[in-house]
């Protein structure tokens, strides 16, 4: 069925070979963090065993090698997202830090009282809170693009929402709850026509969709290595002209050209934004993850996930009381399904925590909660949802196990 050879892929992931509670592990929480293939683990191990040194100012061979490998990883990221220059790739701690970098550096320098920032109801807290802090500091106004009943952004009012007053539009490329793949092209075109910059949260998109930042024409793009088979590290892409004009985010070593007691001058891009010793091994590991994904082909990754998601959407319908939120067609959504189990007869609804705890007994890992998207859950009037998310190593058989286990949850609660 699949465009990927999943059984051979599974052999590359040591963690998937293990048993939990005596049962084979079924990992359906890749939207939170993905598992790592052998090649990524090996890249980390090899770096620490053979190359470990601090980068950029060492003259000896190890330091030169470490620097070269770190900077090579940057170029791999550049090619992976089709950025014009490696100088446009900044390594951060995670997507959250990348988004904060834009808010603190670009936002503080460019926003004036009365300006407007536009986000959306779909956003993860990491693409909401930095803008709230910025708006409070600058006396700016925070607006949001609403969502429709399908969990997709509703653009009917885009013309009125994005106006001359809009300076920053920060929006996700794929929701981590509804899975909706957002109509960024329309939003970006409108934002640019009113002179606003667009910050794209690609934390869910980058691992699962082909991503071409130049075709997208986004001004900033943030994502996390750990959700795309890599270690715990993040990336900020920014258009060079914007990054060049921005003040630093964090101050310290490596980001300076000259330091005097009263003032300093800044290093060139991307180092201006990488203060202190970066996550060297993690960057190199991320390079290995990109190699792995490239070998599979991002088009194939997407095709595999669409098949799997469609299969899951169909199968989940078999569970009475279960309601999946988000777009109903797999072409419009990423590889995940967030759902609730509604009340039935005399029985109350089943809380996502209870679902997840019972599934854990079957060694099935799903997430329960608001998934750092509380405004979206408020929109649905749900305190929490359960979420199963898929990646290159997941199989239809695992979805069958998920559904069987969910049927069991319902039976337990509905006697």
């Amino acid at each position, binding site marked *: 069925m699949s465009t990927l050879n999943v059984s051979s892929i599974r052999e590359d992931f040591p963690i998937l070979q293990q048993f939990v509670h005596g049962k084979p592990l079924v990992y359906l929480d890749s939207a939170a963090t993905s598992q790592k293939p052998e090649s990524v683990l090996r890249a980390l191990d090899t770096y620490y065993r053979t190359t470990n040194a601090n980068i950029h100012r060492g003259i000896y061979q190890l330091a030169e090698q470490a620097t070269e490998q770190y900077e090579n990883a940057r170029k791999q990221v550049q090619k992976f997202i089709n950025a014009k220059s490696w100088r446009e790739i900044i390594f951060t701690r995670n997507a959250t830090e990348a988004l904060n970098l834009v808010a603190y550096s670009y936002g503080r320098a460019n926003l004036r009282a009365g300006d407007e920032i536009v986000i959306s109801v779909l956003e993860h807290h990491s693409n909401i809170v930095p803008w709230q802090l910025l708006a409070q500091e600058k006396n700016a106004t925070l607006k949001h693009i609403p969502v429709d009943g399908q969990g997709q952004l509703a653009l009917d009012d885009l013309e009125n929402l994005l106006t001359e007053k809009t300076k920053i539009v920060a929006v996700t490329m794929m929701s981590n709850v509804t899975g909706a793949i957002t109509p960024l092209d329309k939003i970006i075109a409108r934002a640019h026509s009113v002179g606003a910059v667009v910050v794209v949260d690609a934390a869910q998109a980058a691992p699962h969709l082909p991503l071409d930042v130049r075709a997208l024409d986004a001004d900033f793009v943030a994502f996390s290595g750990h959700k795309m088979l890599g270690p715990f590290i993040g990336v900020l892409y920014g258009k060079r002209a914007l990054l060049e004009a921005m003040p630093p985010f964090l101050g310290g070593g490596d980001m300076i050209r000259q330091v005097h007691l009263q003032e300093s001058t800044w290093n060139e891009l991307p180092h201006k934004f990488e203060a202190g010793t970066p996550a060297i091994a993690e960057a190199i590991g991320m390079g290995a993850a990109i190699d792995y994904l490239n070998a599979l082909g991002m088009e194939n990754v997407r095709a595999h996930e669409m098949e799997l998601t469609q299969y899951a959407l169909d199968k989940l319908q078999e569970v009475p009381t279960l309601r999946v939120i988000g777009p109903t067609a797999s072409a419009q959504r990423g590889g995940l399904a967030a759902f609730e189990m509604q009340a039935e007869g*005399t*029985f*109350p609804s089943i*809380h*996502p*925590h*209870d679902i997840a*705890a*019972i599934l854990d*007994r079957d060694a099935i890992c799903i997430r*329960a*909660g*608001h998934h750092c998207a509380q405004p979206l*859950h408020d929109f649905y009037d749900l*305190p*929490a949802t359960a979420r199963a998310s898929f990646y290159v190593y997941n199989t239809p058989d695992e979805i069958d196990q998920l559904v069987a286990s969910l049927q069991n949850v319902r039976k*337990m*609660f509905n*006697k």
Partner: protein
Amino acid sequence: MDDLYKEVILDHYQHPHNHGTLPDATNSYEDSNPLCGDKIRMEMKIENGVVTDVKFTGKGCAISQASASMLTDEIKGKSLEEIKHIDKQVVLDLLGIPLGPSRIKCALLPLKVIKASAYGIHEWGDEEEE
């Protein structure tokens, strides 16, 4: 499975004891668990240092709701002094199931709300910090 959701927990979840509001409450408090959105509100009638009635409302998982249901039974008729001695272990014994670190928070939320309601938010014990 069986040890995770004992019959009695599901019973309390389906048919919670002391569920509702208390119009003549002398003390009340509401809190939520930011991790999962579980919410509990306790309304108590305290007369001469004794809890003569208590009711709760809330939303959340079976563990938090069953814990609230059982604890309201437990404290009814008890003195504030006696309630002071209700700790984490009492709650775990009432539930009678093993709980991991995140679900312990669900189990203890009702106790936290009871103590905040009875004594005010600064005077309740440190169960959560243990």
